[in-house]
């Protein structure tokens, strides 16, 4: 869905640094996750309570097929990542992307060579966690504004007063449009008495 074809130039890692075996192979965690899910699926399928008198291809039939395919795909992914790590120069098409006018057919939409900036990601996750915890006790208006503010901050908003105002305006607008207008049910929280 994202279409960043122009990010490649900036995301090429410095080749001079000493690289460990793991660099470019962090996707092995994905493969491990896939295999782990397949394992859980397999165990749960085996332990499933099948109601008596169920017709022949029962509720275990399809999950068994999915388990087998998933385990196979997970192993295949692991093998592929081990054989061809992501950011070795020459194999990663994004490294060659030159402002969109090269390699149109290979428009890879990922940029796995780039380094993730974890701070903003964790800020967004934290804002969501706080929002979920506060939604019912505090109500939509404040927790929604806080979520908005948190994401703005994570994305590089550096004018707290303005950002906070926009956040409050946005969550009030949502409250008015969707609760008053469309009749959605949002928790009113501590400000419930005022409205």
């Amino acid at each position, binding site marked *: 869905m994202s279409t960043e074809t122009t990010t490649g130039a900036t995301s090429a890692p410095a080749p001079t640094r000493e690289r460990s075996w793991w660099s470019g192979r962090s996707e092995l965690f994905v493969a491990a996750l896939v295999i782990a899910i397949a394992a859980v699926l397999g165990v749960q399928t085996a332990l499933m309570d099948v109601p008596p008198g169920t017709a022949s291809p029962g509720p275990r039939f399809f999950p068994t097929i999915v388990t087998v395919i998933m385990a196979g795909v997970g192993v295949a992914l692991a093998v592929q990542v081990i054989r061809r790590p992501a950011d070795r120069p020459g194999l990663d098409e994004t490294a060659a992307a030159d402002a969109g006018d090269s390699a149109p057919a290979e428009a890879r939409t990922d940029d796995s060579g780039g380094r993730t900036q974890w701070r903003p990601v964790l800020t967004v996750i934290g804002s969501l966690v706080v929002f979920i915890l506060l939604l019912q006790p505090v109500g939509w208006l404040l927790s929604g504004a806080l979520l908005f503010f948190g994401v703005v901050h994570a994305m590089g908003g550096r004018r707290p007063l303005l950002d906070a105002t926009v956040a409050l305006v946005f969550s009030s607008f949502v409250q008015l449009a969707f609760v008053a207008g469309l009749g959605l*049910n949002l928790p009113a929280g501590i400000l419930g008495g005022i409205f």
Partner: protein
Amino acid sequence: MDALNHLMTGFAHALSPENLLWALLGVLLGTAVGVLPGLGSSMAVALLLPITFQLDPTAAFIMFAAVYYGGLFGDSTAAILMNTPGQSSAIATAIEGYQMARRGRAPQALATSAIGAFIGAILSTTLVAFFSPAIIDLALQFGPAEYFALAVFAFLATSAVVSQSMVRGLVALCIGLVISLVGIDGISGAERFTFGMPQLFEGFSIVTITVALLAIGEVLHVAGGHGGTESGALRRSGTPWLGRKDLRRTLPAWMRGTLFGLPFGVIPSGGSEIPTFLAYGTERKLARRRAARGGAPDEFGNGAIEGVAAPEAAGSATAGTAMGALLGLGLPTSATAAIMLAAFQQYGMQPGPLLFERNGDLVWALLASLFIGSVMLLVLNLPFAPLWARLLLIPKPYLYAGITTFSALGVYAAASAMADLWLMLLLGLLGFMMRRYGIPLAPVLIAVILGPVAETELRRALAVGQGDVAVLFDSGISLALYALIVIVLGVVTVNRARAARAARAQVSAPHPAEKV
């Protein structure tokens, strides 16, 4: 002429002030998300899903379809003006379109793309409206085995063929299937993968899944510094006027592009990138051949107008036939279509041949509104494209904060349960991880929607055949579908091997080999 009568009735419904308003809202929103890079029509429809439950289904689907079409019109604006494709369907347009803009021909490029998108949309919608009886006749011959074959075809086409890496596509497919398995089995009533949690008895809510994967995942991805580079300055543009010389070149290109787009709407290819690149490649080859024969010079690389016309027509031509496949066969061929199929199920309707009988009013009003929406989009995009491009001036933090807040609102409003918000966070992390490693999202959505269909039809077919697997290969239709899968997989494997060998042979070629 039966279809014509139906269509006229449909127009009568669609032209009601209320439905016109929903169509207008849809095309405005669709164009907006089309213009903005990173947001797509699938994310917009996912976010609309929870708040449209209050609406009459006809109005809701008119709006969804308008968003879908609008995305395909709007995506080229930023691609041409700033070399920032709004959706992946405009990557091909950006190549020559941006070159045209750099040479001061931005108005012509924008006009070419808007008219091209209009022609593709109108022609494919017409085709679907008048061939719908044929689609229904075909669909009526489908039994459990055929539907299973169709689902397998959709699974493999989206995951193995389209995505850059076959393994990653299959990973996405498996994740989707696992998500679809959670909940109580509809046939036997057995509890599956719920870990005893009553919140999971009904499975994951489709709203939570789509909003989390498409919206939250994208926000995290952009926060991690991956998406959305700041793009170049907005280019000024004058009146969009195509001279006769331009028209003589664009008209055949629009037609050729449409021809590429039409069949790909029906093939579950997870979007419209492939036909746009095929159309682009063909125009490029034709221009080279024409230049070699001593005709007009080959302008590709310097802003060839055909390179804008053909991909745009191809991209929007997929939308009409995709709607046909969705309504007539119940086959979702893109992420947006998959979410719309889920919306039909939420309203208790099952797309397929019976939909035309039971909900004929809705279907024909929807088809009529596609024509109306296309005209609206032409009017909105032809003169106002530079205005739309100003949307790119919205500060990114506010845009993504708005998306996050809106996602949380939608998920909570649809489920009224805290569990779904936690699930949204979890699946959002999954979506982030998938983007990070280039695992495509469309196969997940298609597997979530079609997974239960595939399972039910497979079990039904096997029950009828008393466990004999041969029953799955018993009819011409299923054999043809399986044969198609094998052929396509074979062609793709051979092409990939060849491309990989070529890439190894010349790592830093000045012009990468075209893929056809």
